[in-house]
Structure formats: C-alpha cells, structure tokens
C-alpha cells in the first residue's frame, strides 16, 4: 500500500515537471527568477494547465469509482450512463435561455441536469435483471445516446453545435489562469468523498449490509449522486469531458488494491490525474507545435482498455 502511494506521488511529480517544461513557447525553469516573461508564462499558462489536467483526471476518476460502487457495477462512469450528456443538455439550455449568466450559475444548472440524468439512469437500472452485469453499461450507452441526440438536435436548431464539440472533448490548450479555477472545487469534492470513503465502500456491499451496519443508505447514495453530478458539470463547463477516465482508472486500481476506498481512493485520484496529464502531454508533443486534445488521446486509449476490461475480464468479474 505504501509502495503504491509512493509510486503514484513520484509519477505525478515527474509528469508535472514535464508538463511545466513542454509547450509551444520557449521556456526554461532556471530563467524564472531572472526573466519576468518566463515567470508570467509559468504562472498564467503552464502551471494552470498542469493543475487543470491533474484536477480533471483526479476528480473524474473519483466520480467514476463512486458511481461504480453505488451502482454496484464495474462498467459504468458518468460518460457511459447519460450523466455527461445530461450535464451538456443542461448547459446548452442555460446557454440558450440566459446567455449572459455567470459561469457558476451555468455550472449549477448543468449539475442539476446531470443529477436528473443520473437519477433517470438509476430508475432504469431497477428494471434490469441483476444477474446480467454487462446489460448495465449497454443500457447506459443507449440511454446516454438518446440524451446526447436530444442535445445535438437542440444545438443544431440553435446553431450551437460547436459548443457541444468543445464540451465533449476535454482540451487543456485554452487553460489560462482565471479560466480554470472552478476545477479546484471538483478537487475539493474528491476530498469530501475521501472523508466518506468507508461509507461508499459499505454502500458497495449493497443495501442490506449497509442497513445492518446502521448506515443511512439513502443519504450516502444522495451524497454520491450529488458529488458525481457536480464533478461532471464542473469538468464539462471548464475543460470539457475526458471520456473513460472514470471507467478505466478505478478498474486498474481495483485489480491490485480492491474496493476498500479508504486505502485505494488516493491512488485512484493520483492515477486519474497522472493519466490525464500524460494524455495532455502526449497530445502536446505528438505533432509539435500543434496539439491534439487530451480528450481525444484518452478516448482512443480508454476505448481500448474498456474493450479489454469487457472482453478479457476474469471469470468472476
């Protein structure tokens, strides 16, 4: 356990250092003390971009693991269960109805839509046979497809399709100081989730076990839903969705560390942040000086890992 913490921390430090050093503009770390332009570049662009990627990855991974425990299914995350699409639909509606609304208000509207979308998914789940775990992600993908189609239709009618494109593909090249800070809120939510780590783990054992242990099961489900929808909305509003983070990261961590969140949540958050930062770095250098969005990089990687998880899972998944 200690070793996984140490590895995660080291990897994050190395990636963060690389992220600060790599970019279109010339930049050397030793110039920071002498050259005010270098310092400004560091503080307004490189550091915010690094933080944004770390916070996005960490909070999306935490949201994913919470969702998996509450739904009691390994193959769900906000992006495959309609939550992201609902968040986009909400954001679209508020953009249409109140274009001048402050970003915080837009985020709240988006989070409420995400909450409704997720509640709808949970209601759908009740009608599925529990013995068919693979049915859950399939139904989730269809459900999110329907909501996404609705959002696309509205965006098409209102000539806002490019907005959808921005929200759907996580991208960090536009991150500057003053334009990403909402993401710290997502990071804070991940910390709150850590405080309730035991409760989420117990909820993952099912309602009967939760009640037997005197836990207020409904309360923890609501806490989880609110956390996941807020994180989703915050990410969609600021940098755009990075698909598969919430799905792939918890699965990788669970293979070696299991589902005891008290122990594994720091690694889930660290790995999520690290992988998204790595995807962003990869996108920065692959056709330098042009950039490929981190969401696209992660989407390609994540889809492959998702398939591997679905098809190559052990007999007792």
């Amino acid at each position, binding site marked *: 356990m200690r070793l996984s913490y140490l590895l995660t921390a080291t990897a994050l430090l190395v990636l963060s250092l690389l992220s600060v050093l790599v970019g279109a503009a010339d930049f050397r770390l030793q110039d920071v003390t002498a050259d005010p332009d270098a310092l400004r570049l560091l503080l307004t662009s490189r550091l915010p971009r690094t933080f944004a990627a770390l916070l996005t990855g960490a909070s999306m991974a935490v949201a994913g693991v919470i969702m998996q*425990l509450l739904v*009691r299914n390994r193959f769900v995350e906000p992006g495959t269960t309609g939550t992201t699409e609902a968040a986009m639909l909400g954001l679209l509606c508020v953009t249409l109805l109140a274009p001048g609304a402050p970003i915080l208000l837009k985020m709240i509207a988006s989070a409420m839509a995400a909450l409704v979308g997720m509640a709808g998914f949970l209601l759908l789940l009740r009608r599925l046979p529990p013995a068919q775990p693979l049915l859950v992600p399939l139904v989730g993908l269809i459900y999110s497809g329907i909501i996404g189609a609705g959002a696309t239709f509205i965006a098409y009618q209102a000539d806002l399709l490019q907005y959808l494109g921005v929200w759907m593909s996580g991208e960090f090249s536009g991150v500057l100081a003053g334009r990403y800070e909402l993401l710290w809120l997502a990071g804070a939510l991940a910390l709150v989730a850590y405080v309730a780590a035991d409760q989420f783990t117990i909820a993952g054992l099912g309602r009967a*076990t939760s009640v037997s242990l005197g836990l207020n099961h409904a309360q923890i489900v609501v806490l989880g839903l609110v956390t996941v929808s807020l994180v989703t909305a915050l990410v969609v509003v600021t940098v755009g969705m990075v698909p598969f983070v919430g799905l792939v990261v918890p699965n990788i961590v669970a293979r070696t560390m299991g589902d005891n969140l008290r122990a594994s949540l720091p690694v889930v958050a660290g790995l999520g942040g690290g992988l998204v930062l790595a995807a962003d770095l990869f996108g920065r250098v692959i056709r330098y000086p042009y950039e490929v969005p981190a969401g696209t990089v992660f989407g390609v990687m994540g889809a492959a890992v998702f398939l591997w998880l679905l098809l190559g899972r052990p007999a007792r998944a």
Partner: protein
Amino acid sequence: MISIRNVSHRIGQSQILRDVSADIPDAGITALIGPNGAGKSTLLNLVARLLTLQTGRIEIDGQDIARTSSRDLALKLAIVAQQLGVASRLRVRDLVGFGRWPHHRGRPGPEDEATVAEAIASFDLGALQHRFLDELSGGQQQRAFVAMGFAQGTDWLLLDEPLNNLDMFHARALMARVHALSRPEAPRPRRVVMVVHEINYAAAWADHIIALKDGAVAACGAPTEVLTNPVLSALFGMEIRVEELHGRPLILHHI
C-alpha cells in the same frame, strides 16, 4: 426476546403476511420454515428493518424497531442477507472488519482488531483473510459474510437462507459453527434467527421453529413438536414421513 405482534405486510396487490404474531425466544437458534412464498424472508426482513413495517409492531428486547434509530439497532442485531452475485472486491479481513463499523465509525481500536481476529479464527478464514472476496467460491463468500455479522458483536444474528449455494460439507460446517456460537456455554452466546430451506438442518440444529404458510404462522415450538408428520404434511401439502434419530426428528421428505 423478539416479539412480533399483528404484523401484516403487502407488496403491491399480494398479501405476503397476515396478522403474524410470534415470539422468538432469548436463546439458541430459531428457524423459520415453510413452503416457497410463505413469507419467511419477508418476516425476517421486517425484523431486520430492511423492509418498512406497514402494520403491527416488532420489539427487540423491549425496543420498538420503528422507534429506534438504525444506528442503535446496528448494535443489537446483525443481518446476513442472501448474497446474490457479490460485486465488491474487498479483502476478507477488510470485510469482516467492516462488521465493527457500528462501534468505531471509521476509527478502529485495539478491541475492534481483537474481535475481527476472533471472528476470522472461529469461521476458519485464516487462510483466506488476504484474498479478495470476488475471487472466492460462493461458500467461502457466505462464510465471510457470516463472520462479518458475528464480528458486529450483536446479541442477535439474523441469517437469510445462509445455506444457499453451500455444498453439504460447508452447510454442515456452517451450521455447527453457528450452533456452537449460540450455546449458553459460549463466551458470549448469540441468538440466531435463520430462514432455512432444507428442513433437516432445522431439525438437527434449531432450538425453536416457526412454521409459516400463506403468510400466517402455521405452527411454532420445539423441533419435536413442530416437525411431526401431521404438521409437516399439512404445511407442505404432501405426505411426509418423519423418523427419529438421536432424539431429533429426521424428515424423509424426498421419498
């Protein structure tokens, strides 16, 4: 004592329990038996507060479960529900450790560690304690969940069909363990209430039997009183031969 008074329950259109009144005595193992759909699990789930009481009253050692907080009840009774497809990937030791949650709420102390170690030893889980739950067989999972219920340290232990998906070796071993824990000479005797499908386990190990049919109590009492040819034949609607072995009923329901 658990006293059940005038409990009726309906789910949708169907009446599951009709005016059930029964006392579960303060010692040993009480088995709920009856045909499919008799309402055994519903009754157990009502006592366990997994279902909300619609009419009637249930008291556990004088405490009305409708008026006692779930947190306080977690110190009085532990429930081991049927585990249908365990999705969690916890190590066995961590799972049993969560049985102590009602006591420490996140900060386990030395006495919690000791109780967990005791539960692991008494359910023979030492070799499995660092394994992940989802990599164990159904029988091993069941044993781990019962150990968790035991670690909760409550006077009452409610088991919903604990012998489901156990082979005869593990079924007998589990019954023998639970039986030993419920004897008066055990260090801290537990009172056990369980839903049992295979009636011979009730005949061999239970101290008290409550037989349900069509949502009502058909008979209750000691195994020698309830597990007789006339009672069982009426209960299951077929002629059932009952013999005696070592002073306990032996039910030849399969021939």
